[in-house]
Each structure stands twice: as structure tokens, then as C-alpha cells.
């Protein structure tokens, strides 16, 4: 009755875990304060909590022993509350903040070893960043703001204006080229910031809480805009946010940070389905589980007496989207991956998730 193709996949960019990562972060530390570089090397100091470290050494460890990989084309979200070190982390990636220890490998090259010229070149061509408070130049028109990065590279006026015009249209700002930033609304200003980041055609886009300063409705528009752009240009993105729903909406994978440490890293359904600790559990408590969990998380092994001739669905189908199909079928739905039966999902499993948010995964 229902086939797998009828239920849409949650996202158009499936993970390919086999490919080499674009960015690979290992043992990354950022410590602020006197003699900061001693902290990561000292096993004793590493063990302290942030507060104890502050009392002992006067240092603040903003990022502590973080490691992760970002695959090509992936939207990788770093999530945490304010003070969790997420903004410091994203700045460490292009050394806007100089990391204290660890390595950041970008396409096989350790960014920490890059000299000033190479680093500038990376920033000009490989990375772009979108900032929470936009960081636009108030004395330049929209078009010149968008072209700013190209101008910095030394691109000629005619060429950069042409490129900027294209990007302005891409982000939906056509008609506002000659406005000044303070004549635009917050959401439009952030579109300018987005266009500026896209203009240089970078490999990786970094977003530092880009929508936190916007109204909820405009925020939603902008999130959809990012999803649309991701479809269109397919860039690798590292996205910082403190908003879990934003993280779940945008992120292929999510890294949760607390006090500079990484607490858990996984897909949205992994966080909701298998929280690493109470902190994450508390975080995801209010998430509508049906929107996030996939059948993989709720299926059970077939028992004797289960009818095994029901319709088939993939394991990565989201519960919410499978609900209708499961409830409509008079037999349990088979969860099948590559022709192999993983388990079955019946009405009770679906209802446990959809009706009661407290189901134990």
C-alpha cells in the first residue's frame, strides 16, 4: 500500500560516512588567562571543572578537548547555552581566536600551522562567516558590502560588482542594492551578511548564531532560506546556535557543548533517542519526539504471532511521517533496510511516541 518512496526523506543530503572529512578537529583547546598554554598539557588541570580551574590558575577554559569531523556538504550544528564555548569554537576554526592546543585539519592541511599569509588566503577563499550582529559596514551600500570580501582579495570593480549582483539576487535582496544597511530590517541585514559570505564562493560557511538577534517569524524565514541555499549551493556549513529546535531543523549532525566540553555528538534522532546524560536529556525533554525520532528508534523485534506481510518502510523515516501509514495498515509495518528486515512497528509503538512524550527509548 505505502511504499518507501512515498514518505519523504527528512533531508536531501544523506550522510556519506565513508568520505574524507572537510574539517577535522582534534583535541582542540582554548584557554584564556595567564599561562594558558600550560593547562591543556597538565593532566591535573585538565581534570578540574571550569570553576576550579578559575580559582586555581585564573584561567578560563572556553573550549576543552573538543574533537569532531565535518563531512563535505554536511550541515554541522554546534549547540550550547551562552558561555558553553560554542562561539569561541567556531572562531578557532579560522583562528579568529588563536587556539591554545590541538589541531584543525582542513582538506588535509593543519590550519594551526598556516602562516599569516596562508591563513589570510584560507579566509579569503575557503571559509566565510556570518555573524550574529551582522558586522556590516554602515558607510557602504548593500552591493559594496556584499562585494567587500572580493574587494579585499583584490578583484576589480566591474567583476566584483557583477558577482555581488548575482549573490544579492540569490539571497532575495534584488532591488535593495543601493540601500545602506541601517535602512534595512534585521532580517534583510542578515541576508546581506549571508550574501557577503556567499560572494566569495567559499568551501565552508560558518554561522555564529546568525538568527538569534531576529524576530521569531523572520528567524523561521531565514532558517528556510539557509535550507534552500544549502540545497542550491550545497556548501559545507558549521552552524552555531543556542536554539535546539533550530539545531534539529537545520543540522545533519549536532554537537552539544557544555562548559567548553562536548557532551554528545550525533544526529537529531540520536540525541532525542539516546541522550548521553541528564544534561542532554533535560535539553531534549520538550522536543516533540515524533518529529525527530525515526522508525529505527521505536521498532521492536518481530515476535511469534506478528504478521510479517505488512507494508515496508525504511528505518530513517521520521515517526511523524510514518504515523498515517502505520495506523492505516492493519498489520505491523516492516522496517527494512537494503532488503533486510530490521524490526517491525505497530500501532502501539507509534502511539507511544505520538501520544505520550515520555516513552522510554
Amino acid at each position, binding site marked *: 500500500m505505502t511504499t518507501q518512496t512515498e514518505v519523504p526523506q527528512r533531508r536531501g543530503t544523506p550522510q556519506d560516512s565513508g568520505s574524507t572529512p572537510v574539517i577535522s578537529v582534534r583535541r582542540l583547546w582554548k584557554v584564556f588567562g595567564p599561562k594558558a598554554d600550560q593547562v591543556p598539557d597538565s593532566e591535573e588541570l585538565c581534570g578540574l571543572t571550569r570553576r576550579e580551574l578559575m580559582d586555581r590558575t585564573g584561567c578560563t577554559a572556553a573550549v576543552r578537548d573538543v574533537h569532531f569531523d565535518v563531512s563535505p556538504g554536511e550541515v554541522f550544528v554546534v549547540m550550547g547555552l551562552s558561555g558553553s564555548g560554542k562561539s569561541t569554537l567556531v572562531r578557532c576554526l579560522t583562528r579568529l581566536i588563536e587556539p591554545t592546543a590541538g589541531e584543525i585539519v582542513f582538506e588535509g592541511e593543519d590550519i594551526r600551522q598556516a602562516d599569516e599569509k596562508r591563513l589570510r588566503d584560507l*579566509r579569503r577563499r575557503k571559509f566565510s562567516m556570518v555573524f550574529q550582529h551582522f*558586522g556590516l559596514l554602515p558607510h557602504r551600500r548593500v552591493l559594496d558590502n556584499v562585494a567587500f570580501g572580493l574587494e579585499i582579495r583584490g578583484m576589480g570593480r566591474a567583476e566584483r560588482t557583477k558577482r555581488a549582483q548575482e549573490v544579492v539576487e540569490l539571497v532575495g535582496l534584488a532591488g535593495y542594492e543601493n540601500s545602506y544597511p541601517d535602512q534595512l530590517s534585521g532580517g534583510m541585514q542578515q541576508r546581506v551578511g549571508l550574501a557577503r559570505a556567499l560572494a566569495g564562493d567559499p568551501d565552508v560557511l560558518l554561522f555564529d548564531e546568525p538568527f538569534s538577534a531576529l524576530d521569531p517569524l523572520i528567524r523561521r524565514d531565514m532558517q528556510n532560506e539557509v535550507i534552500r541555499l544549502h540545497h542550491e549551493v550545497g556548501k559545507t556549513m558549521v552552524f552555531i546556535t543556542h536554539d535546539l529546535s533550530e539545531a534539529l531543523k537545520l543540522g545533519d549532525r549536532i554537537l552539544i557543548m557544555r562548559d567548553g566540553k562536548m557532551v554528545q555528538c550525533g544526529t537529531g534522532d540520536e540525541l532525542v533517542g539516546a541522550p548521553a546524560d541528564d544534561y542532554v536529556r533535560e535539553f531534549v525533554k520538550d522536543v516533540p519526539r515524533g518529529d525527530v525520532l525515526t522508525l529505527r528508534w521505536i521498532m521492536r523485534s518481530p515476535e511469534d504471532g506478528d504478521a510479517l506481510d505488512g507494508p515496508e518502510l525504511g528505518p530513517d523515516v521520521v515517526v511523524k511521517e510514518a504515523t498515517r501509514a502505520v495506523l492505516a495498515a492493519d498489520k505491523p509495518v516492516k522496517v527494512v533496510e537494503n532488503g533486510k528486515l530490521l524490526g517491525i512497528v505497530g500501532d502501539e509503538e507509534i502511539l507511544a511516541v505520538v501520544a505520550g512524550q515520555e516513552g522510554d527509548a
Partner: protein
Amino acid sequence: MTVVMEKPEKTEAAEPAAPAKSVRKVSRPVMIGAILVVWLVLFALLRGKQTLSLAVADLTDLHRWINDFNDSIGANRNSNPLFLYFFNEIRLVIDNLVTFVQHLISQPSGARPVPEIGWLGVVGLAGFVSWAVGNWKVALLAVAGFTFFGLQGLWQESMDTLALILCAVFVALLFAIPLGVWAGLSDRFNRLMTPFLDLMQTMPTMVYLAPLTLFFLIGGASATIATVIYAAPPTIRITAHAIRNVSRTTVEAADSLGATRRQSLLKVLLPMSKRTVVMGVNQTIMAALAMVTIAALINAPGLGVNVLQALQSLDVGTAFNAGLAIVIMAIVLDRVTTAASAREEHARNSKNRFEKWRRPLLGAGAVVTVILIYLSRTYLWAADFPGDGTVGSHIASATDTAATWVQDNLSGLTNAFRDAITNGLLNPFQTLLTDSPWWLVGAVLVALAVVLGGWKSGITTAVCVGLLVATGVWSDAMTTMASTIVATVLVMILGIVFGVWMGRSMTADRMIRPTLDAAQVMPPFVYLVPFLALFGPTRFTAIVAAIVYGAPVAMKIIADGIRAVPATTVEAATSAGCNTWQIITKVQLPMSRSALTLATNQGLIYVLSMVVVGGLVGAGALGYDVVAGFSQGELYGKGLAAGLAIVLLGVMFDRITQAAARRAGA
């Protein structure tokens, strides 16, 4: 009945305060009171002993030594390598610059009996430049103002003043903007600069002059250098502030796009701070005007000379006429530069349909200006301002008539007022300061500094007192201090009354603030003129001028302090049933304590500089010593020592009040 009511209230108020704190809080005023009582008792016992008074013509060894030093510099000026290759070179360059500009607009140049550009050309140029950097309104103002100088019969003097200002501002900006950018980029350099800037700005204008004449002789060069030193700090500070205040995200965004340091400086930091820097330039120009006029004391040409001579011969009419020219120049320069700083933003936001005509119109204006300049070079009527300044003499005689009328008819009132303040406040206080033994006054000052500002300011004060004694003008310093403190008390009373009013009422603020702004633009010199007419040449004239000069800044600071009190706190007090008086005295004033101390600080500095200038109109003491030092060779050393004493007083006041302000803020 009232007694019964009061008693429980008192105990209630005392109870909730933490014991440790209440001891401290009560003790400070008590300690100050105790110090004053001890002083009065000892004064009664020791009056007239060890007062270190020095007659006007008497000199100390230090003064004679400075005289000798000055003589030896004068003798070796052209042989000492330091002078030959350093100071004289600087003087030469600056002199050449000043002479060049003077030949352009004010003084006969070479074989020509008139300057290169006559009045018509200058007026045209002033209008055109004002229009180009500002708008057509300030251009009209500039044209009208400049023409008025000619009508006043003060064309050449005005142009001399303008020439000095242009030179000084040019040199000042040449140093100030790079230094400001550097201070904005480097915290360390900023920390290094700040104390110097503080010192340069707290010193009253007059004391700059004497030491500079030692190295650069009297005349235009010294005047320009003094002006540069005095006028550069605002631009340095404001530029640094502007660079620092450029949004961090924007700089970071430029970094993230791979901008080099140079690129982010040229494309981000400088363009974004341009508007603020122009405000700094405005301040620098106003400071330059103030200094250039007072530099008449060391033979700088210009309007200052007219005011100075008229003040010294008590010719109110002439002083008023020249003072009016200075005021007009101040207004024109201020309006034009303010318009320049507002222009950019204005032009950007308005979709003015005249904008696209701006370029061709400016071109046409430039052509007209060139024609005017050509005319003024070719024809005498356009070079020499026609007429003989009858308007000026009318103004002078009208002022004289008015002054005479005031003196004839209001002298009862003004004299009564003057005598009341002089006899009731000034004289007793001055006697207390000058007739106490020096060590007693010194000890009182140090003790007060410790109580008000802490040990550090106590030590500074002790050092200042020691040095004041060493200058040999202790007694004069005490006289100046008496005047300064009396004037500051009055400034603070005015400041609190008006500041609270302005802080509480937007209408009052809107009405009063423009007047205050205008008052702050005037060079201190000019203030003396009307009060000279009212009160004649006395200490009191200087004090009133000082109050008028110092009050605006105090009012503004206090008004801002009152306004900064959170509205919710005031609302809470209102809902608790406070009446207006209670809200002011129990909520708004205590909560703006740091604004009050800051206002005292600024009030003291402003008043001190004015009281010193008052030496010109019979205020005597340190100001007179400095002025006399310029004109009489044998008093040169004493004048220089008096200048140093003024600086010491300034530093002492500044340190104590700043420390007190920090305490209040903490």
C-alpha cells in the same frame, strides 16, 4: 507632636544599615568636620605666623635662578647645538608656515601692500568651503560672519587669528590623528598617552605660554606650538575612542574575510570612525581659538591683542567689540565643523533630489570663488575692506554707554552683591588660607585628600604642597585657591539647581542646553569683558567670570547623572510615597553621586583656568604673577614659578576629586 513623629523614624533609618558600613559612612563627614575644627582652632592660635607671604616685587632664589637661566638661554640661543639644530629649526618651520598663511590672508605680502587674497576672496572661499563640507546654511553664516569682521574694523586682526588657528590646527591634526589611531589600536600606547593628555588638558591655557617662550621666543611660533599642545588632545582622544568603538563584529567580519591589517584600517576602521573624528576636529578648532586669543600675552597677533590691551586699560567698549569678533568666529567655526560631521549621514539618508545637482553646483561655486579671489588680488576695493569699521566704533561706544549707565545706575545693586560675596565668603576664607602657617594649610589639605580620596591622593597632595612651597609663591597660590574654591562652591550650587531641573524636565533641558553649549564654545578670555563692565577690576570679576565659565559643564554633567538614574527606581520611590523633594534628595542626588564628583572635578579645572586669566583684570595672585612675568623681564622667573604653581594646584584638585569620584562610583 512632631518630636514624637520623628523619633521612631530615626531609629528605623538607623537599624537596617549594616553596622560596619554605617560607621564608615558617618565617619567621613565627621572626620572632615574635625579637620576643619582643628584648623580653625590652630588658625586662631597661630594666625600670621610662617605664612610665606611674598611682596609683588620680591623674588626668591628659585625665581632669580630661572631669570639667570632664561638670560643664559637668550645669550646662547644661536650657539647651543640643541637650539641651533632643534628648537630653532622647529621655530623656523612654524614661523614660515604662519608667515605664509598670514601673507595669504592677513599681512602685506612681499611687494604687495595687501595680502595675496583680499577680503572678497577670503569671504568667498570661507563660504565655498563651508558649503562644500557643511551645507548652504552654514555657508551663509560664514559669509555673514566674515563680512561682519570687516564691518567691525577688525578684518586684519581676525585674519591674523584665523591664520594662527589654521596653522595650529593643521599641525595639531598632522600629529593628533595618527597618534589617535595608534592609541585606538594599541592598549599599551593608550595607557601611555592618557596621563599626558590629562595633564595637557587640565593645565589652564595661560601656563603653557611661559615655558614655551623659553625655547621658542615670543611671537607666532610659540603661540602656534602652545596651541598645538593644547588643541591636539581632543582629537587624539576622540580618534582613539572612535577607533575603539567600531563594532567588534565588523572588524571580526573583515578579518574573517581575510583582510590585512592595512585593509581593515583603511576600509573599515577609518571610514567608520570618520564622523566621530570630525567631532574631534571641531573640539580641536575650538580649543585652538581659545588658545590663540590668549596667546596675545606672548605677542601672538590677532584679536586677542585687541582684547588684552583693552582689558588692561579697562576700555570695555573696545574689548567688547573685539570679544564679539572672537565670539562670532567661534560660532562660525563651530557651526561649520558640526555641520561637516553631520553632513555625511544626512546626505546618505535623505533621498534629496538636489543631491545629484550637488556636484555641478559645487563646480560652479568653485568657479565663482576663483573669480572672487582673482578680483581680490587685482582690485584694491576687493582687497582692502572698504569703510573704516564704523560699525565697530558704534558697537564700542554703545557698549561704553551701556557700561557707564550700568555703573551709574546699578552700581548699588552690583556693588552690594559683590561686597556681600567678597566680605561674607571670599575674604574670610582667603584670610584663613593665607594667614595660617603654611604647614597647617598643607597638613589640612593632605588630611582632606586622604579622607576624600584615599592614601594615594594624600601622597600626591603632599608632593604638590611641597612643590608649591618650593615655588616661592605659596601665599599667592593660597589666594588663587581661595578664589577657586569659592567660585567652585557657587558653580556647584548653580550646577545642582539647574542640573536637577534639567535632569528632571526634558523641556528645561531643551531650553537650557543650547545656551550651555554656546557658552562652552567661547574662549575664556571673552568672559571677562561683560563682568568687567559690571563689577570693575576686582577679584570678584574673575570669580563671576569663572562661575559663568565653569557652571555649564557642571550643569550638563549633573543633568546627565540625574537622567541616568533608572526610571524604575524613581517609580519605586514614587510608589512608596516620596514627594518630589524626597525623590531628589534621597534617590536622584545620592544615586548620581559620581556625576556630582565628576562635576566638581570639571568645575574646579574650568574655574581655576578662569580665575587665573582673571589676573588680567585685577584678580591678582598667581594670574597676575604670570602676566607680569611676560611683560617685565625681572619678574620672568616668578611668572614661570607661578605658572608651575597653577599646574600644581590643578593637579592637586584633579587628583583629589578624581579619587573621590572613583570612590563614589565604586
